[in-house]
C-alpha cells in the first residue's frame, strides 16, 4: 500500500526545516532502539542459536548428521515438499481470492456497509487460527461435522463414505485459506483505495481502454503491495504450527510438525535435528525474502 502514497505525500517534505539535523537524527535513531532490541532478541539471537545447535548431536557433540538427514531422510524431504506446496498454494490462492474480494468491496460499487463488514470480518478471521480454527473445521466438515451431516440430510449422500476427507493436505489448505484471504483483503483494501479516480479518467481521456488502464497504470502501482502480501501469506502458512497440529497431529507431514516432534515429543528427542529442520526453513524464508526484495525493486522502479 505504501509506495504509491509515499511517492506523493513525501515530496512536499523535501523542503522541511533543517534545523538541528544532528539532534533529530539522534532522536530518530533512538526511537528505533526498541525495535532493534526486539529484533535482536527475538530474531537474530534465536537464529544464531538455531544455526549453531543444528550441528549438535543428542549428546552435545559436533555433527553434520542433522544437516545430511534433511536431504536424505525421505520423511524430511517430503515434509519440505508438502510445506512448500501448501504455503505456495494458499499464498497464491489467498492472494488472488483476497484481491478479487477486496476489489469487489472497495471499487465494485457495493454498499458502503458491506465494505465495513468485510474489513471487520477480515480483521477477525485473519487472526482466527490455531486450535479454535482447527476445531471449527472439524466440527463443521469432519466426519460428524455439521455441514457433512447437513449435506447427508438433504442429499442422502455421506460425502465421507464417498472418499472425501478433510484430514488431507487439501483439507488443511482449505483451513489455511480461512486466515489467508482475509489478510489479503485487509492489506489490499487500503492499497486499492489509493487508486485515484483521476488516473482512470486520465487514461480514458488519452484513449486507453480498461486493459490499458490495468496493464499500464493500476497493476504497476499495485504490484509492490501484491508481491509483499503474497510473500507475507507464504510465510504465514509456512510457519503455521498450532493450526496444523490441532487439525491432524503429525498425520500430515509438515516441517513445523516434525520440528515439534523432535523438541517436545515423548517419543523422539533430538533437538539438534529439530534445529537443523528449522534452519532449513529459515534459509527458505531468507531466499524467498531476497527474491521478493529484488522483485519489489523492479516493480517499484517507476516510483523513483
Amino acid at each position, binding site marked *: 500500500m505504501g509506495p504509491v502514497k509515499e511517492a506523493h505525500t513525501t515530496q512536499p517534505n523535501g523542503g522541511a526545516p533543517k534545523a538541528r539535523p544532528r539532534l533529530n537524527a539522534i532522536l530518530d535513531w533512538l526511537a528505533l532502539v526498541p525495535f532493534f532490541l526486539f529484533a535482536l532478541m527475538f530474531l537474530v539471537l534465536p537464529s544464531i542459536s538455531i544455526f549453531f545447535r543444528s550441528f549438535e548431536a543428542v549428546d552435545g557433540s559436533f555433527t553434520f548428521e542433522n544437516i545430511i538427514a534433511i536431504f536424505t531422510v525421505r520423511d524430511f524431504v517430503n515434509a519440505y515438499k508438502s510445506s512448500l506446496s501448501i504455503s505456495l498454494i494458499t499464498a497464491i490462492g489467498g492472494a488472488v481470492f483476497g484481491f478479487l474480494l477486496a476489489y469487489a468491496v472497495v471499487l465494485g460499487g457495493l454498499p458502503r456497509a458491506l465494505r465495513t463488514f468485510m474489513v471487520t470480518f477480515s480483521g477477525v478471521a485473519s487472526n482466527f487460527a490455531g486450535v479454535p480454527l482447527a476445531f471449527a473445521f472439524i466440527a463443521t466438515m469432519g466426519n460428524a461435522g455439521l455441514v457433512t451431516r447437513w449435506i447427508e440430510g438433504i442429499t442422502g449422500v455421506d460425502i465421507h463414505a464417498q472418499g472425501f*476427507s478433510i484430514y488431507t493436505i487439501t483439507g488443511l489448505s482449505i483451513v489455511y485459506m480461512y486466515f489467508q484471504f482475509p489478510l489479503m483483503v485487509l492489506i489490499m483494501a487500503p492499497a486499492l483505495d489509493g487508486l485515484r479516480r483521476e488516473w482512470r479518467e486520465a487514461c480514458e481521456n488519452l484513449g486507453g481502454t480498461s486493459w490499458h488502464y490495468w496493464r499500464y497504470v493500476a497493476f504497476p502501482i499495485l504490484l509492490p503491495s501484491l508481491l509483499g502480501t503474497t510473500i507475507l501469506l507464504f510465510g504465514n502458512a509456512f510457519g503455521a504450527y498450532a493450526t496444523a497440529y490441532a487439525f491432524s497431529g503429525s498425520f500430515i507431514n509438515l516441517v513445523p510438525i516434525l520440528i515439534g516432534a523432535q523438541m517436545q*515429543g515423548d*517419543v523422539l528427542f533430538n533437538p539438534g535435528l529439530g534445529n537443523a529442520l528449522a534452519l532449513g526453513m529459515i534459509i527458505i524464508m531468507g531466499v524467498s525474502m531476497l527474491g521478493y526484495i529484488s522483485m519489489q525493486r523492479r516493480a517499484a522502479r517507476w516510483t523513483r
Partner: protein
Amino acid sequence: MSSVKRSTENVTRRDFLKVSAVAGASALLAACAPGAAEPAANMPDLTSGNAIPLDDLIAAAKTEGQLTTIALPHDWANYGEIIETFKTKYGLTVNELNPDAGSADELAAIEANKDSKGPQAPDVIDVGVGHTANAMAKGLVAKYKVATWDSIEMKDPDGYWWAEYYGALAFEVSKPAIENSPQDWEDLLKPEYKGKVAMAGDVLKSNQSVMTVYAAGLSRAGGDKTKAAEMGLQFWKEVNDAGNFIPVIADQGKIAQGETPLVIEWDYLALANRDSLAGNPEIEIVVPKTGVIAGPYAGGISAYAPHPYAARLWWEFVMSDEGQLLYLKGYAHPIRFNDMAKRGVIPADLAAKLPPAESYANATFLTVEELQAATTYITENWRSVVFGE
C-alpha cells in the same frame, strides 16, 4: 504451541508416554556407565535391600516423621487418596514437591539434591519405566524389595525399581455411533468402522500411539514380539487403506462431538473419560482379546533419600493390597492385579467399573530395550509404510 500440547496431550502431563523417548539415551548411558552405585553407605541396615519387618519399619519411619514425594498429582491414578490414607494410617507428614513434574525432572531433583537433606530432596519417585535405566546408571536409586515382591510382575531383579501400576490399551467406543463394539484388533478392519477409528495421540509424539501400532502387530503376530512392530505398521496401513482410520488426535472434545467414535487409548484414561462424559455419549471400554499391551510406571527410592525409612514404608503401603486397590479405584491397574484377582481380594463394586479381569490376564510387558527398538522402528517407518510416502 503449549496450548496445543496441553489440549491434545494433557494425558501425557506426567510423562506416562515419555517412556521410550529417554529409553534411547538411558540405554546408551547404561551401556557406558560402570554399573549402578551402591546406596548411601551411612545406613548399613538398609543396604541389603531386603524387606524390613513392618513394625520395625513403622517405628523407624516415625522417628523421621516425614516423607518427601515428587510428581504425584492428586487426580492421577488416585494419588490424592493414596497420600491421604498413608498420612493418617502412619501419622507421618508428606511433603509433596512439584506434582506436575515429569519423569526426567524427578531424576534431576534427586541429582541436584545429592548433598542436601533438605525439603527439596525427594525420597521416592514414580517414573516411566524407560527412565529406570537412566536412574540406575546414574546411581540415583537404592534397592529395596517390599514384602509383596514376589507377586510384582515387572521389576528389576536386584530391587532398584519395580512397576506399581499400568494401563492397557483399550477400545473406547461411543455407543450410539457404533452399534457393535470391536472385540479384537482385526475387527478394526471391518467396513462398518469406515471413518471411525482414531488414535489418542500422534505416532511421532506420543508413546501411547507407538504402542497402539505395536499392540495391533502383537495381536497379528500371535504374540511374537520380534515381528510386532513390522506387522503393526502393516495393520495400520490396512486400516488406513480401508478408509477406517481418521488421522486426527482424539481427545475428550472430539469424542463428545462425535468426530472420533472409536478411540484407542490407555484404559484408565478411557475410563476417566467415560466418567466425565457421564453418558453423553455413552462409552463402552473394550480391552482387545489379543495384543493387550501394558504401559507401566515404575517406583523407586532415592539413593540420597533424607527419610529412607519413611520411603520404604511408603512403598510397603503402596505395594500392599490396600495401596494397590487405591490405584485401581483411580482406574490404573495395580501391577499385582492378577495376584489379587486370583486371591479374590478385589471388591466386586470396584471390579464392576472395570473391564473384566480376564482381559488383563495376558497383558504383555515390554522391557526397556524392546520398547526402544519398537519405537525406533515404528517412528522411522510409520509414514512410508502406512501412508506410502
